């Protein structure tokens, strides 16, 4: 197999074969930038971290998973935090739960880099982890919060540790650097797509949300699929594709309904047959696709 996306790039140009990847990197960096303008040039856009923030002095946002842990720890959460969590929930129920993972979370760039390096070096060896582990981990985290009366995952959460390190500048030497290196080594040398794809309970939480969310990737032109397998090769959650892509006989799809899908759009980038596009969970298959197109 040639490198995923090579065919699409040959047909439509490099930019078309990297459109969503570039968009995602831009959005990820933009989310970082709005937190950094304050400390760096004293123009405050977003204050705080991904755990809880205040944007332009008016918009409060709070991570709903952290808010849930706080409630389970029997803290009477303030109206500000509850409002902030509700806004975040409302946004992700529309744009796709794990859109957080693909478009906002700073860890994505670390683990995507590890996956890219594995692919370039042709490393196939990996320990096998069950993708459901993250849901058990999420259950454990919530139980631990209730049992210990603390926001349990925040003692170790790589997402907020790294984001905190980035916005406070301590990434240069503190815990954020160690965590980043640890995740890089884990995903690169030990388990392929290990952290984000198998273990992270934050992703699991947003995945539960994503199973009910509106914006989804749909294999609308699945009739045109030539089984080149490139989408499977780039997808960070490859188990979500087959039901939507190959479920026509069973009347399944064409929408990827699994909450594990991160709405990253890489499948759209690499597919030379334009099988996938963003739609809603109600998107029907395209009917006018000609066989053998």
């Amino acid at each position, binding site marked *: 197999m040639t490198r995923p996306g090579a065919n699409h790039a040959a047909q439509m140009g490099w930019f078309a074969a990297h459109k969503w990847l570039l968009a995602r990197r831009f959005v990820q960096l933009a989310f970082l930038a709005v937190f950094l303008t304050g400390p760096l040039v004293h123009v405050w856009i977003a*204050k705080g971290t991904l755990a809880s923030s*205040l944007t332009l002095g008016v918009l409060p946002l709070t991570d709903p998973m952290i808010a849930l842990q706080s409630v389970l720890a029997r803290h009477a959460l*303030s109206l*500000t935090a509850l409002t902030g969590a509700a806004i975040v929930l409302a946004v992700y129920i529309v744009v796709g739960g794990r859109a957080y993972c693909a478009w906002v979370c700073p860890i994505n760039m670390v683990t995507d880099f590890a996956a890219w390096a594995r692919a370039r070096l042709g490393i196939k060896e990996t320990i096998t982890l069950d993708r459901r582990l993250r849901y058990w981990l999420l259950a454990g985290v919530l139980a631990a919060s209730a049992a210990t*009366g603390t*926001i349990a995952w*925040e*003692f170790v959460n790589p997402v907020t540790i790294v984001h905190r390190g980035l916005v*406070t500048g301590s990434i240069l030497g503190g815990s954020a650097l160690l965590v980043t290196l640890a995740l890089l080594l884990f995903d690169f*040398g030990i388990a392929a797509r290990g952290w984000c794809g198998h273990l992270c309970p934050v992703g699991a939480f947003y995945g539960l949300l994503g199973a009910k969310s509106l914006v989804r990737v749909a294999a609308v032109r699945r009739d045109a699929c030539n089984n080149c397998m490139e989408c499977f090769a780039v997808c960070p959650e490859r188990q979500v594709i087959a039901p939507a892509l190959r479920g026509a006989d069973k009347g399944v799809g064409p929408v990827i309904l699994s909450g594990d899908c991160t709405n990253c759009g890489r499948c759209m980038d690499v597919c030379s047959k334009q099988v996938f596009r963003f739609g809603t969970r109600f998107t029907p298959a395209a009917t006018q696709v000609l066989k053998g197109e």
Partner: protein
Amino acid sequence: MAKAPDHNGAVNRRGLLTGALRAACGAGLVALLIAMPAHRRAVAVALRPPGALPEADFLSACVRCGLCVRDCPYNTLTLSDLGDGPSLGTPFFNARNVPCEMCEDIPCAAACPTDALDKGLKDIKDARMGIAVLVDHENCLNFQGLRCDVCYRVCPLSDAAITLEVQHNVRTGKHAMFIPTVHTDKCTGCGKCEKACVLEEAAIKVLPHALAVGELGQHYRWGWKEKDKAGEALIEDNLQLPIRGMENGLPSSELKGFKP
């Protein structure tokens, strides 16, 4: 895992390389995980911002977002990192570095989105970030009979949270000592005294309440306070019982008239 040897018995080079790679990554990962607790170093006591809930409740409420840190106008607060002591990412300050300036509008507590810092704290004088304790009597200049008084003079609640108590100077036999004395019902734990102490290492330090203040047993009462409260002694005076055979005092002539 390393692949099986190929036909001519040579070990598959690729299998060896990837095996070594995984071992190296595994070892690196373990090293990084061990490096985290290994960062712990001895440091001064870390104090929470004004209005912070008691530590157990604080950890159910603080989401470690740093909004209090951002809104502190004096850069007193920082978020904890490895080795700082407090739980990773939670806000704290070290009084000897930058003490709390006790802003009247308490901007740190106002910024807290989760009420981990209690907005019910309206008067910064009611904050209890810790309690100043004059821990080192051997090096405190005032304890030597000198008039340093710096902790007393910088205290925002001088003459209330810290007073100078006069004692006899036994060393010289004729001078007074002015002993800086902290009053726990007034001290906010802002740390200005610890910051200002002129010694190389501060003789007065702000400690968390639990370390600094003892607590009386629930059943215990100070007799003199109860007496003041009641306006009289709570127990009756000793019974004056006659001693048989001595109603007229001791029989001995010198002690005649003495009654026990």
